[in-house]
């Protein structure tokens, strides 16, 4: 009885779906695209609407695609869930593999001639290195078209090397955030600062109450120092502007340019100021040994008021913390220093890099570059912690308030987005001397020495 009802229900749904897709096909047929053979498994399925591009690749039933990423449990599940639609529409199955040793392992596998089909590469710098090995395959035209349609030009540029487009952007994160406790702020009558000077004035005000206003932690094992590099990048974007930032990242101006030194001194005004840091933990040098995951936690105890860290820091608040505009913690946009440069946003993201041009791999790349996938992914992440710069992403599909705020910032036409600079620099600097010297700088090295050392380590 029960099963019969279900079956009838399905039949009705199928009939409806056919109708819908027929309508969809009709419209695309009128466009004259007769390359679509209609043999793809998604043909006639309502849920595959919007993915007609996948028909180009035909029936991929039984095919597998290996996907290698740096995203591990529990964040891997939303990714895997968001691929179900792809399997429904093409018949191919992506196989997920995540590892915390992703960056080292990917290099080993590529060099040994055993690369995955697809890798989610989180740094443009690493993408360049990989392209240099000659093993990376250019993105198919469908992916290129989708990227033009759904992403800004800047994002496409991050996925390109020497003018060739390889990797479409996937997820994104916003780094220009300051975490704070809305409760603590309203209890004390503090306002969220709108300008850089307001923020410093607020810091002084808080410091006068005996609370150290800022807390930070830059310890991250072998990557110790990276949160401090983000600080410098964020401030440089605000003090010298995006153009100078770009020249600095591409080494058109030296790393120790006076403008960079000024920016770093500005950072030092906060991070190396004993009156301001390190709330709830210790003195300035304790920043160097505090795990970045723990850096903002004193906010919960009221021992610290502000913590500059990316949107993904949301995952670090203990279970049960209310992360929302009027909750226990939330974030505000790191204010600008002048109106001159718009609203600069520092951020990061991953890029879908392919090592094979098999049809199923290209179909999967195409799928990941669509607005359909971006919304699927948002819906598959009920706990939040994910956002994309894809303009087709409906902000309402994002689960958490902080993701929605990030999404709004990424889609804001006034925002001037810049990718994390250290992720674009050569590995010796971006994953080497930059991290190391910023750590030394926190523990006492002068601004000049730190920047000079990084400059001299830049590969010629």
């Amino acid at each position, binding site marked *: 009885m029960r099963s019969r009802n279900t079956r009838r229900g399905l039949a009705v749904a199928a009939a409806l779906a056919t109708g819908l897709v027929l309508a969809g096909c009709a419209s695309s047929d009128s466009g004259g695209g007769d390359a679509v053979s209609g043999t793809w498994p998604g043909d006639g399925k309502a849920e595959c609407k919007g993915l007609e591009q996948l028909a180009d690749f035909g029936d991929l039933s039984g095919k*597998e695609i*290996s996907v290698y990423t*740096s*995203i*591990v*449990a*529990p*964040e891997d*599940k939303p990714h*895997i869930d968001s691929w179900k639609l792809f399997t429904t529409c093409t018949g191919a199955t992506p*196989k*997920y*593999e*995540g*590892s*915390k*040793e992703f960056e080292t*392992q990917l290099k*080993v*596998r590529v*060099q*040994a*001639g*055993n690369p995955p089909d697809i890798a989610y590469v989180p740094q443009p710098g690493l993408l360049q290195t990989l392209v240099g090995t000659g093993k990376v395959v250019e993105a198919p035209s469908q992916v290129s078209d989708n990227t033009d349609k759904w992403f800004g030009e800047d994002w496409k540029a991050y996925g390109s090397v020497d003018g060739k487009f390889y990797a479409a952007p996937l997820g994104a994160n916003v780094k220009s955030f300051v975490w704070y406790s809305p409760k603590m702020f309203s209890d004390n009558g503090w306002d969220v600062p709108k300008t850089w000077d307001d923020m410093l004035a607020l810091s002084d005000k808080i410091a006068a109450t005996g609370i150290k206003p800022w807390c930070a932690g830059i310890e*991250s094992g072998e990557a110790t120092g990276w949160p401090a590099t983000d600080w410098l990048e964020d401030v440089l974007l605000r003090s010298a502007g995006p153009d100078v930032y770009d020249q600095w990242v591409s080494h058109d101006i030296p790393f120790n340019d006076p403008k960079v030194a000024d920016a770093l001194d500005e950072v030092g005004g906060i991070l190396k100021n004993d009156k301001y840091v390190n709330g709830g933990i210790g003195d300035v040098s304790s920043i160097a040994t505090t*795990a970045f*995951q*723990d850096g903002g*936690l004193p906010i919960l*105890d009221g021992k610290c008021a502000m913590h500059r860290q990316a949107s*993904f820091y949301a*995952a*670090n608040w*203990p*279970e*049960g913390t209310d992360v929302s505009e009027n909750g226990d913690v939330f974030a505000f946009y790191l204010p600008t220093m002048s109106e001159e440069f718009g609203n600069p946003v520092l951020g990061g993201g991953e890029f879908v890099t392919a090592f094979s041009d098999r049809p199923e791999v290209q179909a999967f790349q195409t799928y990941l570059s669509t607005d359909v996938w971006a919304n699927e992914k948002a819906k598959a992440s009920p706990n939040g912690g994910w956002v994309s710069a894809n303009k087709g992403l409906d902000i309402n599909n994002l689960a958490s308030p902080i993701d929605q705020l990030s999404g709004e910032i990424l889609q804001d036409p006034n925002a001037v987005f810049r990718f994390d600079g250290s992720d674009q620099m050569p590995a010796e600097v971006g994953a080497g001397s930059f991290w190391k010297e910023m750590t030394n700088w926190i523990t006492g090295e002068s601004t000049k020495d730190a920047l000079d050392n990084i400059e001299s380590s830049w590969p010629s």
Partner: protein
Amino acid sequence: MTATNPDVAELGAQGAAPGPEPVSTSARKALSSPWASLAAIVIAVVWTIPTLGLFITSFRPESDITSSGWWTFFTNPTVTWSNYDEVLHGSDTNLVTYFVNSLVITIPAVIIPISLATLAAYAFVWMKFPGRDFLFVAIFALQIVPIQVTLIPLLKLYVHPPLNLVPLAGPDAPGGGFYTLWLSHTIFALPLAIYLLHNFMSQIPGELIESARVDGAGHVQIFTRIMLPLMAPAIAAFGILQFLWVWNDLLVAITFGGPNTFPLTARLAELSGTRGSDWFLLSAGAFVALVVPLIVFVSLQRYFVRGLLAGSVKG
């Protein structure tokens, strides 16, 4: 391994309390003073505190772990099973799968290198052939080669083997992709295994071998009939160490294996989350991983000790 042969048990009991006159006990008494006992207790306590801290941490709720020391547990005990629950049931793949993979990887990766190393060590000690000493020293020195520099050359060989052999890695790997792991672990274990077993074997009295030779026994007979029983305990001893190393290995597993062959360590390494935010789960994970090696150690401990005893008796 768990079923105890009565003879062995008896031998073990004798080993622990030999004969009517426990000489070593008196030796120990002579050495031990209250200070000595105190020293032993201090070492034991100092060595255990970090592990104890981790153990207690594994039962504490996340918010407590970051806000107060684990020793406050004694005055304010709050026990939660949620960390273990998350570790055991937190993924789509059943943790049992990883346990099985760990076992399937570890058992051959212990048996094969030890067999090969025992054979080689025997030859290095008791057989005469040109280049013997040079070869032994070379193998000994190769212990220092960092596994990291071997990853790319070995993986290349596995993926694109010469002479059109079957590729051992990749999607169509034979044996579900385990061969690369067994082979790699074997290779990396051999130098140390040969070095250690050589040391134990060279302390077996030479007269034993000589008289057997005079009686007309060949090397194969001497090896299987005399050497193996004498060395069995030493072999078991190294076996436990090798078991530990392979069980705890992550690098070899993720380089040469794939998601289908991932052992427990690969799963546990991911527990802390992409940005390390769930690192408190590592404490529970560490104890889940610890169980099997500890069982192996505790159950074979007597054997382990007796083994080295027999192996290093001097004539």
